[in-house]
């Protein structure tokens, strides 16, 4: 893996970590949802810092070059985050339905 790509990965992951931490500090992102982002950025950081591991896995899995594996890892992380978001949305939908029902029943009682 070329060293400028490694520098890019390290910088990218550090920016991501700082952003996530500052969002937690400003109370804009609950720990629950930020942990995954932190883990994801640490994975990217490790990829940049320890390229030997990547080279090892590249030949093991059968990728042409290590850059492809890096792309694959990032893609996998994104898919996981999207899945997490879908789960969160479904949970919220359930809660919204409950709220709409309760509010509507209450309104009917008040108007009686």
């Amino acid at each position: 893996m070329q060293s400028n790509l490694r520098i890019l990965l390290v910088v990218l992951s550090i920016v991501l970590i700082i952003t996530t931490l500052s969002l937690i500090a400003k109370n804009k992102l609950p720990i629950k949802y930020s942990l995954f982002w932190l883990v994801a950025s640490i994975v990217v950081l490790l990829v940049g810092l320890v390229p030997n591991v990547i080279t090892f896995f590249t030949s093991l899995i059968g990728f042409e070059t290590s850059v492809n594996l890096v792309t694959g890892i990032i893609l996998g992380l994104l898919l996981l985050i999207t899945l997490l978001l879908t789960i969160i949305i479904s949970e919220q939908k359930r809660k919204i339905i409950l709220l709409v029902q309760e509010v509507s029943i209450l309104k009917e009682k008040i108007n009686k």
Partner: protein
Amino acid sequence: MKNKEKILIIIPAYNEEKNILSTYQEIINYNKKMKTKYDVIVINDGSYDKTENILKDNKIPHISLVTNLGIGGAVQTGYKYALENNYDVAIQFDGDGQHDVNCIKDLVKPILDKKANMTIGSRFIKKDSSEFQSSQLRRIGIKMISLVIKLKTKKKIYDTTSGFRAIDKNLIKLFTEIYPIEYPEPISTVYVLNHNYKVDEIGVNMKERKEGKSSIHTWKNFYYMINVILTILLLKRGKKNAK
């Protein structure tokens, strides 16, 4: 029929301005004629036509959902209302004039006699009982869902998509806790069977819709089938509640 049991008819209504008043009046007239005491609650599921005005002007008991939830969320609201007001039997009844008021007693009787926890008004039990039998393609779909339910629960349900059904107090409680959001009829039937409650199918008369279109459109049928079959296959068996 004993008169002390409290019976509630839940009518989900989404843009039913043309049918809702006549459906309500049919029930009221039936009550007068047969000396029954069916209460009615219309759940207005965020209609944007004149349904709300008609309900208000005619003093029809109703709950207006502050936004559209879909049939599952609407009917569940009715069950919550039934639980709060201590009803013994809750009947789901369409607001579009498809269901026959005269058949309600047939659905209620097995529940009051404690022979079933849920009764489903079926078009297919007695072939000649219903003038409306639905289209060829839809019947095939209904048969497929029927087969999947048989596989999953060992119980044959013929009219799997019927929205004309009655449930007892136990199931009112269950349905307030858990009820499918989309396409609730076949899926909730599997909930009930999975919890070892007894389901009975009763032959009823169904008419063609008076006005408006059914909520299941042709292009949605494929999605409907996938959704229902997958959900049923993946449902876990419930706790052994009854008997």
